[in-house]
């Protein structure tokens, strides 16, 4: 229990009253900013998504759900959704597997762990734009990997996904995994280090092999970490924008559009603000349908103290 409004009744003394209100006064500006800039703006965008706004917000033309209908009939949006599906499934799955795998390997009393761990994690400190530049040129057939293989004498080697409409999205997956998997590894490593040692000793006494201990005891205990990793990665995936801009800017053609890129291009590039707003609303619904239940379960436990 907190020291709630200590001397609430001390109304007679104006100084005391001010002291009572101070905490709320201190919190108020931040909360007001959040209410306006987040929730007010969401409502604004929501309203906008029902208008026929083009270059500028225009609340005089209400079009109902027309923007949403057009959105889901637009081939670029369908491409963006497909890309999001491919991207998030591969990104989340591979990051988790790689993260867990590396964490388990690193948890084997490795000499030099202090050197290896920061190497795995540093990409997380880079901006997606930097990551994008690095991978864009590394995967570029002209000067990058393909060229390197040719130089080394493997003349028939061909790797030009980044230039191929069908495969370009996978190059973005590769770069994104490079950036985030170290972080997932760190999450799992923290989880592994948090496992009660006595449980493992008990399993060893029961004669379980190392593989069995991991498979039957430790990995099942990592459930909360899987959940956290899933939420973080899913939310990053839906927001993915910078990396795509830096690597392909949506190309070739529209092959690597994602919902975030769609929103940007339609709102600011094609002056379809109404449709842009509706795509942003859909993005928010996707994120909130993952985040809200998660936060609710995380905070719900703490509420009932």
């Amino acid at each position, binding site marked *: *229990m907190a*020291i*709630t*409004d*200590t*001397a*609430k*009744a*001390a109304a*007679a003394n104006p100084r*005391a009253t001010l*002291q009572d209100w101070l905490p709320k006064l201190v919190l108020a500006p931040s909360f007001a900013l959040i209410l306006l800039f987040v929730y007010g703006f969401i409502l604004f965008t929501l309203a906008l998504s029902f208008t026929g706004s083009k270059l500028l917000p225009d609340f005089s033309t209400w079009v109902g759900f027309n923007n949403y209908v057009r959105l889901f009939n637009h081939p670029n949006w369908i491409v963006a959704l497909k890309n999001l599906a491919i991207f998030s499934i591969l990104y989340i799955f591979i990051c988790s597997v790689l993260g867990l795998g590396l964490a388990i390997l690193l948890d084997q009393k490795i000499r030099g762990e202090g050197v290896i761990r920061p190497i795995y994690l540093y990409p997380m400190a880079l901006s997606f734009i930097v990551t994008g530049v690095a991978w864009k040129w590394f995967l570029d057939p002209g000067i990058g990997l393909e060229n390197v293989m040719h130089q080394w004498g493997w003349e028939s080697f061909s790797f030009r996904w980044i230039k191929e409409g069908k495969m370009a999205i996978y190059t973005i997956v590769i770069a994104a995994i490079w950036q985030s998997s170290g972080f997932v590894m760190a999450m799992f490593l923290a989880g592994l280090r948090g496992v009660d040692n006595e449980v493992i000793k008990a399993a060893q006494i029961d004669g379980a092999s190392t593989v069995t201990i991991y498979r039957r005891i430790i990995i099942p205990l990592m459930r909360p970490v899987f959940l956290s990793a899933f939420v973080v990665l899913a939310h990053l995936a839906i927001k993915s924008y910078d990396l795509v801009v830096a690597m392909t800017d949506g190309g070739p053609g529209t092959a690597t559009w994602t919902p975030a890129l769609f929103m940007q291009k339609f709102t600011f590039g094609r002056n379809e603000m109404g449709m842009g707003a509706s795509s942003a609303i859909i993005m928010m619904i996707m994120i909130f349908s993952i985040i809200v239940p998660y936060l609710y379960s995380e905070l719900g436990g703490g509420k009932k103290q």
Partner: protein
Amino acid sequence: MSFLQINELHKSFGATHILKGINLEIEEGGFLVLVGPSGCGKSTLLNTIAGLEPITSGEIRINGNKVNDLHPSKRDIAMVFQSYALYPNMTVGENIAFGMEIRGVPKAERDKAISEVANLLQIGHLLDRKPSQLSGGQRQRVAMGRALVRDPQVFLFDEPLSNLDAKLRIDMRTEIKRLHQRMGTTIVYVTHDQIEAMTLATKIAVLKDGYLQQFGTPAEIYNDPVNMFVADFMGSPAMNLIPATIVTEGNRLAVKLDRSQREPVLLPLSAPPAGLAAFSGRNVVFGIRPEALTDPDGADRNASQLATSDCHIEVVEPAGSDTFAVTELGGKHVVARLRADANIKPGSMTPLAFNLTKAVFFDPESQNRIK
């Protein structure tokens, strides 16, 4: 006139009613202990006295002044916390003087006050250390020093010894008692440890579920518990509370204690409480403290009502100064306290003396004492 007075105090937190009409008072220089199981509201009560939590209704008076609406710092109290609550970033000296610093007391005066308190508590050599460099017992002393330096009208202690190990706890208990005797300041002290309550208090208030169960001197609480809860809570080992039947033998009342596979024990009562007659033929709870159930040689010779009965001894627990024996009565394990050298063997039938002067009876339905 009483010095600290609490009238009809209610405290709710949201929908939960935490304190339900508490009335208490303690004279100047008294030592009031609030005791009860966790969640009984004793710490909340202390916090309301300190002003750290607002009350819903009722009145708190210190030295005649109503302090309901005063800020904690204006109530002229000092508090020692369970975790000691020493400011981790300040040295011991700064911790002790922080309140004075806030009030703008000049440095010279602060230093003087610090050194006085440090002498009193023998913590002079610790003044420049940080709390993290102190042992538990030293932190405890510093926390007391911080309270003492305020020279308040009332000291509030919130389970101050519960984080110390057993031996240190007993030492500090004595120290607190000595300080109290020396300074004569009124103290309100919260604990869940009934031994602390008994040894320190001039008055004990037993709380449970937000209700004041009993308020009285340690002797009253121990010898005359008003209900089964108080009887059970105070005393270690706890009072034996044995399901029993009251029977009328001729013109006298007697207690019948059933035993499995044995004859019931029948204890005649020469001076039963007045209310007990109404329970003739009915079930009661017969309460007897372990020290009132002993080997006949060790029994209190001044007791006016002694009854002896052969009991089957199940377990013997020598404890050095005493020997405890467990027997079965009324379906309960009953503890008897025997002399250390009592010759007793598990499995044997041994005569035990019931000191019925000390026995008490409870109504099993209301759980209240039958007087």
